[in-house]
């Protein structure tokens, strides 16, 4: 029997954490992540999880404590958003380089400034090259699912990297929808016991971790880390298959939505893909061959598979919810690299910064009109 509850994305993530029951959660509150830790802290206080919550004084400390806990041999989770991630960023790089399998929920929120609390993906993109896995949820159900899958990916001996489960601030973190929870025992069995190769509290086999690496070894250690992130793509698909057996839901590196015979396709991350699916359905009803490639895994980026999935499209439009001033926005750049040398006509569009709504009519215009580089920005020419 599935247990379907009306939960916000934040609450759904907290329930995944309750079921995974990590040993340690060092965390600092920040909007729009706060409902995650608030709900989880209540569940712990009510005795429904046995986690040690460490109330740290900043996000920099949260990730520092998380590294210590994860490498000491404890399953570790945390959560943050926006400025919290910015403050944490220095330590996120260190977590990846020390190969600490920390799972973190990221309630995506625009970076300051101007200060803003609403969703865009600029916080994720700030740590694009930190070496962590970044998986984007479309809705509360996926946020829950990915949070259950994340420890398996992070802790796989071939990976051993932090995994971020990214859920759009407010649109997912604060919106309630029906979420199907797995039985607690199924999650316990699915994630299994925690282990890392060199637990520092194993006094029978002590190690020095995070050593100084001079020009003779730094390059090799960075390459080793990059290889682990590349391998995470295979591990993600293995874990997705196992999770599908358990839940009936498949959350791989990306979802092809009505893409098989599509001549025009959009590529996007996060909750906007739900809006795009509705527009694709409308256009299909009108006999337009529209489709969507919903990217889940931004890092590692499934370059070859994405290129194959879009190969037959005449036109592909990429929707970035983060800009790269003076350059090419991050998702657009990935697609341009993936489709290099193909005949696909590629355009890139920035939308939704700081929580600006993207309406179905905007999405429709991208499919059918002449889209501008910025969608929903005052002063831009009307698209249709």
């Amino acid at each position, binding site marked *: 029997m599935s247990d379907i509850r009306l939960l916000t994305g934040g609450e759904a993530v907290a329930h995944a954490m309750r079921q995974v029951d990590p040993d340690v959660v060092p965390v600092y509150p920040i909007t729009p992540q706060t409902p995650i830790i608030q709900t989880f802290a209540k569940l712990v206080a009510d005795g429904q999880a046995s986690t040690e919550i460490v109330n740290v004084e900043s996000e920099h400390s949260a990730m520092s404590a998380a590294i210590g806990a994860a490498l000491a041999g404890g399953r570790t989770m945390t959560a943050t958003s926006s400025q919290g991630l910015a403050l944490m960023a220095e330590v996120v790089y260190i977590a990846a*380089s*020390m*190969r600490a399998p920390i799972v973190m929920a990221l309630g995506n929120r625009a970076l300051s400034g101007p200060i803003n609390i609403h969703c865009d993906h600029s916080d994720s993109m700030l740590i694009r090259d930190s070496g962590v896995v970044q998986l984007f949820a479309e809705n509360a159900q996926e946020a829950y699912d990915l949070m259950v899958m994340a420890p398996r990916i992070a802790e796989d001996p071939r990976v*051993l990297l932090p995994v971020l489960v990214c859920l759009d601030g407010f649109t997912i973190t604060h919106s309630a929808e029906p979420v199907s929870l797995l039985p607690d025992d199924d999650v316990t069995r699915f994630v299994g016991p925690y282990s890392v*190769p*060199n637990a520092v509290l194993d006094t029978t*086999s*002590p*190690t*020095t*971790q*995070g*050593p100084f*690496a001079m020009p*003779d*070894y730094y390059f*090799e*250690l960075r*390459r*080793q*880390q990059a*290889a682990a992130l590349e391998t995470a793509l295979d591990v993600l698909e293995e874990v997705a298959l196992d999770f599908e057996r358990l839940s009936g839901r498949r959350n791989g590196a990306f979802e092809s939505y009505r893409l098989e015979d599509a001549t025009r396709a959009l590529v996007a991350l996060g909750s906007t893909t739900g809006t795009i699916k509705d527009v694709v359905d409308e256009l299909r009803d009108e006999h337009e061959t529209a489709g969507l490639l919903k990217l889940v895994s931004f890092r590692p980026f499934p370059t070859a598979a994405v290129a194959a999935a879009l190969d037959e499209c005449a036109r592909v439009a990429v929707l970035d919810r983060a800009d790269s001033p003076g350059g090419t926005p991050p998702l657009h750049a990935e697609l341009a690299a993936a489709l290099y040398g193909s005949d696909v006509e590629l355009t890139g569009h920035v939308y939704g910064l700081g929580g600006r709504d993207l309406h179905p009519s905007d999405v429709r215009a991208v499919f059918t009109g002449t889209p501008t580089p910025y969608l929903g920005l005052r002063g831009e020419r009307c698209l249709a």
Partner: protein
Amino acid sequence: MAELSTWETLPVAGAVRPGGAPRTLTSGWRTGEKPAVDLSLCVNCLLCWLYCPDSAVELSAETFTGFDLDYCKGCGICADVCPVAAITMVPE
């Protein structure tokens, strides 16, 4: 020098086991001066031993005997704290 590992043969994240690091002599970091002692003046107070940041003051039991110049970095703290001016810094 021993052959260096490739990224594929390095331990995960470069973890180091006991004895796994080379015994690197650090006297090459010394910049110009090293300590010298006039043992006829030394009162064996061991302040130099206590203050040396590199544990490069050598003892025999509890008696000062000299300096381990493989690890001395030439900071001059020993000469500074010596109450009887038995230690002086001299050019290499």
